[in-house]
């Protein structure tokens, strides 16, 4: 304990280096995207950043509370639509969404306020449904949050004045760039990490490990679940908003089962309960699926032409996912984090002792 306290009060370049290294590694992506990356690579880097946000914020809830939400893509949808509606120029709104209620038709927010309001909106929704759903446990939460996702979809398809229904929603201002995305990635990782290391986060982990024991020492289970649920809904909605302002035209189909499964695959492969695992799992799956998608359209083996096999990448991804669940259920990292301070601290040094 003493050494840890000393290490944080006195300037310790090793700890700083350990903290700075992952930041620099993540920062390398947008720098590369702006200098020398092809348009395709640029696009992959932007989408990767948004996926990292989605997975880390899903992990913040699913991984650290041990309760499994299947409905987070619903928050992503709320974020994308809300931010797009709030930021669309008034003149465009009159044409694209003529039936919008008056109080929305004359609003035109700039990028950051629009995403923040969209995030807060999702957060309020999360608090309302969370109060009900988070009382449940195990299976039941999964089924209830899946129901939430279906409800969001039904509403998106039917709330035509706001969303154009199942038709494509277009006219979203193209605000997202790679720096916005990676700034939000940094915020997401920082918030998740802070929450995990706070007393509140310890309570989350305690009720994940043993609900009864946690209650016995005064942890209020519902409250410790609600906080991360609301925060992760906020961040997921912001990620959805960033996605919307990048993709520009989308429909409710984008926010359904396929997207849910993709994000969960990234989460499970990386290891539920580990922030660095989420980042690594996301990078792995994004790269893998890009490679597979390029092969999917058919390719030349030299001696024969492989025909296009649409759907193959999804199938291989699902097979990989089942293999991870069967052979390495805790994912690549499990509950561990990659700790870069270890790179700089010699073996046997007391600073190498990990905090519990």
């Amino acid at each position, binding site marked *: 304990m003493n050494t840890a306290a000393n290490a944080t009060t006195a300037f310790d370049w090793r700890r700083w280096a350990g903290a700075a290294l992952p930041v620099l590694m993540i920062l390398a992506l947008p720098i590369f995207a702006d200098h020398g990356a092809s348009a395709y690579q640029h696009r992959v880097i932007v989408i990767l950043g948004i996926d990292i946000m989605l997975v880390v914020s899903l992990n913040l809830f699913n991984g650290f509370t041990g309760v*499994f939400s299947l409905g987070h893509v619903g928050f992503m949808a709320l974020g994308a639509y809300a931010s797009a509606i709030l930021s669309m120029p008034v003149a465009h709104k009159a044409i694209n969404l003529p039936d919008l209620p008056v109080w929305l038709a004359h609003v035109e927010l700039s990028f950051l306020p629009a995403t923040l309001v969209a995030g807060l909106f999702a957060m309020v929704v999360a608090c309302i*449904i969370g109060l*009900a*759903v*988070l*009382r*449940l*446990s*195990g*299976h*039941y939460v*999964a*089924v*209830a949050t*899946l*129901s*939430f996702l*279906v*409800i969001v979809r*039904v*509403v998106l*398809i*039917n709330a035509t004045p706001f969303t154009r229904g199942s038709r494509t929603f277009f006219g979203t201002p193209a605000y997202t760039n790679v720096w916005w995305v990676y700034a939000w990635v940094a915020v997401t990782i920082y918030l998740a990490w802070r929450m995990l290391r706070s007393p509140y986060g310890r309570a989350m982990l305690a009720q994940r490990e043993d*609900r009864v024991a946690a209650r016995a020492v005064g942890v209020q*289970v*519902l409250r410790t*679940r609600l906080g991360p649920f609301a925060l992760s809904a906020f961040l997921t909605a912001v990620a959805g908003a960033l996605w919307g302002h990048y993709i520009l035209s989308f429909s409710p189909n984008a926010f359904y*089962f*396929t997207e849910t*499964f993709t994000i*969960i695959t990234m989460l*499970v492969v990386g290891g539920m309960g580990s922030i660095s695992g989420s980042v690594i799992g996301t990078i792995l799956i994004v790269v893998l699926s890009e490679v597979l998608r390029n092969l999917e359209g058919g390719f030349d083996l030299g001696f024969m032409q492989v025909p296009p*096999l*649409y*759907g*193959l990448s*999804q*199938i291989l*991804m*699902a*097979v990989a*996912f*089942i293999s991870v*669940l*069967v052979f390495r*259920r805790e994912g690549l990292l499990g509950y561990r984090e990659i700790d870069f301070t270890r790179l700089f601290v010699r073996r046997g040094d007391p600073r190498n002792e990990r905090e519990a």
Partner: protein
Amino acid sequence: MSLTEYGLQQAINALSIGSLYALMAIGLAMVFGILRLINFAHGDLMMVASYAALFMLLAGLPFWMVVILAVIVGALAGMLMERVAYRPIRGAPDVAMLLTSFAVTIILENGAVMLIGARSRPFPVPDFLRQVYHLGNLTVASVNVVAIISTAILLVALTLFVTRTDTGISMRAAADDMTAAQLMGIRINRVIAAAFAIGSGLAAVAGLLWTAKVGKVDPYMGFFPVLKAFVAAVIGGFGTIPGAVVGGFVLGILEISLQALLPGDWSSYRDAFVFGILIVVLLVRPNGIMGARVREEI
């Protein structure tokens, strides 16, 4: 149209849709009862059976033979699914099994897209399933009558099976207490395979009835019915066969009443209400309307 006639008409509609949900929910409940696995891929068995039927009809086989073979194909597909995907992960945490079944869904649906194509194909529905009868002011489609009657027959057969045969009784024993059942010499793998075969066969029947109703087949056709069957199974109390049947019919009645009672612009939100009711049932009676009133504390 008098009020009685209107009620009768709606009752027929509710019964016919409810019987499809019941057929689907039984398979979910049988598997859940034994393995605690929510088999999300159950809906895709409808799709597999319907495609099998489509290709056999196009090959020129007679309809009655196609029905029997398609049900067998569905049952075999279900057993294969269990052997390949679910047996390796048996005993894992509930959520891991649920996620595995998601992956199976992705594999089956994309497999169909890859091999057959994403576009829906018209299904040559035989004439006797296309009739519409008029009894006074009532209109009754023959496919609905067939759905109700075949569900009734299957339910009687299933009841006899689980109460009178050794396999059926072992199945209920395994659902009650898997370890004790194994200690009594029940071969658990065989029982689970039988549960998958029967549940999947029923899903195949539901798939064929569904296809006969809508007249087309596509890779994603099982997605929404299985969600509805979940709701039915949860309403009835997950894991029991009678609960699944009651849940299926309750859901049918619920949907038809929502359709009838919701004001015009709201009726398209029907499914949002259905899933909202599911959340309420989970909160108030997590063991279903048939189950004991126990509340799982957090």
